[in-house]
């Protein structure tokens, strides 16, 4: 949009321009930093560089001098500076401790398993004492288990419930507000519906937990008070305004002449809206649903408060459930900085980031193409 004209020699002008460019450039860099810093903490797990099996290979104390340089530190979990500070005797003792500790580890097959391997995080495993291979998320136990599948299923369940409720409601409302309501009514309805977006998610979570959970339980009569269904219903509160706003924008973006032509040919307002405007805006409506999905997957506080937070593998909507986002929120504060649990939670965050990145990109692309098409036709 800017107008370009030749500069006279004005140092202030040039300086200001550099400054403005610098700020906008750092805004861009910041976005990339998010990618960098969320994935950075997860990298050792991604590349399989950590092995957290309880039973580790043991090196006898006598072989200490034969170890190649650097391997001793790695074996004892010391960095170069710590290693340099210790004398021979201390190191020997540390090695003896390792040998002793290894003798205490039960010699079953479970203790030899690296639960941070990709297979362990995504595939079921036959643990001793379980009937069949299972997906287990138990980050705090003798053998920490980091299978992400139960959490993914939890997120999927709550998201689906939310979308099933929110999408029909929001789309119907957007059709009414943009096409069927009178202009005066419209001026009121649109901001009123968008006010729903102003409810903080922690308030929606509070409402689900304190008011809705008991009410829904008495209506449907299921067992556990907090479950994927309750969380999904509450999540719908957050999804409705997203889907509504974007769909309403897309529907309003369809040129007036479309409706006018349909009305002139004798159709009713509804027929014009349903058969002419909606098909023309369909990609935008689809994008609204995609972006609503992204919002539902990423929402944290509502599911943290209303889903019950039991990380069990179950497809039932009425079982207590834990989602991906709630896991990060609930567990990160208790992890050790740089520990395995900490890294796995960052890995989950990175997965979340990639998933929402893809949904956003898809949504934006669809809306962009729709706008171009409608502008070309108008």
């Amino acid at each position, binding site marked *: 949009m800017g107008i370009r004209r030749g500069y006279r020699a004005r140092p202030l002008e040039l300086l200001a*321009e550099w400054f403005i460019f610098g*700020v906008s450039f750092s805004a861009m860099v910041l976005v990339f930093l998010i990618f960098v810093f969320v994935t950075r903490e997860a990298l050792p797990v991604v590349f399989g560089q950590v092995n957290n099996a309880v039973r580790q290979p043991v090196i006898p104390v006598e072989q200490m001098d034969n170890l190649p340089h650097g391997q001793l530190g790695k074996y004892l979990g010391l960095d170069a500076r710590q290693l340099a500070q210790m004398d021979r005797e201390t190191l020997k003792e540390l090695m003896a401790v390792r040998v002793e500790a290894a003798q205490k580890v039960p010699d079953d097959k479970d203790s030899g398993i690296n639960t941070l391997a990709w297979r362990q995080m995504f595939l079921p495993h036959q643990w001793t004492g379980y009937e069949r291979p299972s997906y287990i998320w138990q980050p705090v136990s003798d053998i920490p288990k980091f299978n992400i599948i139960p959490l993914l299923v939890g997120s999927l369940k709550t998201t689906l419930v939310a979308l099933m409720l929110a999408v029909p409601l929001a789309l119907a409302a957007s059709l009414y507000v943009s096409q*069927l309501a009178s202009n005066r009514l419209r001026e009121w309805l649109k901001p009123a519906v968008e006010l729903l977006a*102003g409810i903080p998610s922690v308030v929606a979570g509070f409402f689900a937990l304190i008011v809705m959970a008991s009410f829904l339980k008495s209506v449907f009569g299921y067992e556990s008070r907090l479950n994927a269904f309750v969380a999904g219903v509450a999540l719908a509160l957050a999804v409705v305004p997203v889907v509504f706003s974007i769909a309403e924008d897309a529907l309003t973006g369809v040129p007036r002449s479309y409706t006018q032509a349909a009305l002139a040919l004798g159709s009713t307002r509804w027929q014009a809206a349903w058969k002419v405007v909606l098909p023309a805006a369909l990609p935008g409506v689809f994008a609204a649903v995609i972006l609503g999905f992204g919002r539902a997957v990423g929402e944290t506080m509502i599911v943290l408060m209303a889903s019950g937070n039991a990380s069990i593998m179950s497809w039932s909507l009425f079982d207590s459930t834990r989602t991906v986002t709630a896991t990060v929120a609930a567990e990160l504060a208790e992890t050790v900085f740089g520990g395995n649990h900490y890294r796995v939670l960052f890995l989950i965050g990175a997965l979340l980031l990639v998933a929402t990145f893809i949904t956003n990109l898809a949504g934006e692309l669809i809306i962009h193409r729709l706008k171009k098409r409608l502008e070309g036709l108008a």
Partner: protein
Amino acid sequence: MSNPVFNPIPPRRLDPVSLCFTGLTGLATVLILAILGVILANIVYHGGANFSWGFFTGGTAQDMFDVGKSGVLPMIAGTAARVILMSLFVIPAGVITAVYLTEYARSSSLHTRIIRGAVNNLAGVPSIVFGLFGLGFFINFLGQRLDAWLLPGAAEPVWGKPAILWASLTLAVMTLPVVIVATEESLRAIPQGLREASLALGATKLQTVWRIVLPQALPGILTGGILAISRAAGEVAPILFTGAAYYMARLPQSLTDQFMDLGYHVFILSTQSPNIDKTRPILYATVMVLLLLTFALNLVAILIRARIRTRMRAAH
């Protein structure tokens, strides 16, 4: 052969199917508003009953979960402080980026396209991921390096721990797109003729932007700022690990202090209370304070925006 009179206007037909569906979509709209109404009514009914002078001026020193003994002042102070601090970062950065995008950059350049894409994507990133970013970047990277550089040998970390500064910066990153998009929208609504007139009179580009364009765009910038503040005021996930405290005996005194927060307090009261029946009154009252804050901000923003849109329509 009689020649029937051709009637160009068909008789107005009442189509039952159309009526039915118009009614249904209308019903959906009403339903959404009704849900909103029920939530607000419930909170106002139960929350308003527990408002008292002591509630607003009291701290949580005695018993956090018991009404009558506990107040909300530290949370209001904490939330206000983190939100004000955040706007100091995000409004200048967002406005300058938007000015660059609309006034200086060529709209087709790679840099512009990347910034636009980045901003759009930033808007969709889940809030909990911002929390992870805040912990990974501000606290564990920046904070720890600041500690090593400014206070080598200190026993306790000063910068490398959750603090109000880091929480505000995390929220600033999160709300950056809100400010950029709102500012851009209002900059675009300004007629090009104004800029041309200013330049034709010999003003430089910077003078045009500073004296002509920005004052015109002020309401839009204000809206963006208010929207960002109202979004940030209600967010809890990004501050869970970057600065919010479960309990603090005093108000935050410096940038490196932790703080108590309204939204986080709602979360604590709802989930950690030993006796929810006893806690419920204070919980409702706290929710109502939070809601009043965010809704008032939202309402102002919506009103300003509606006025800008009307003016923009009139201008074109």
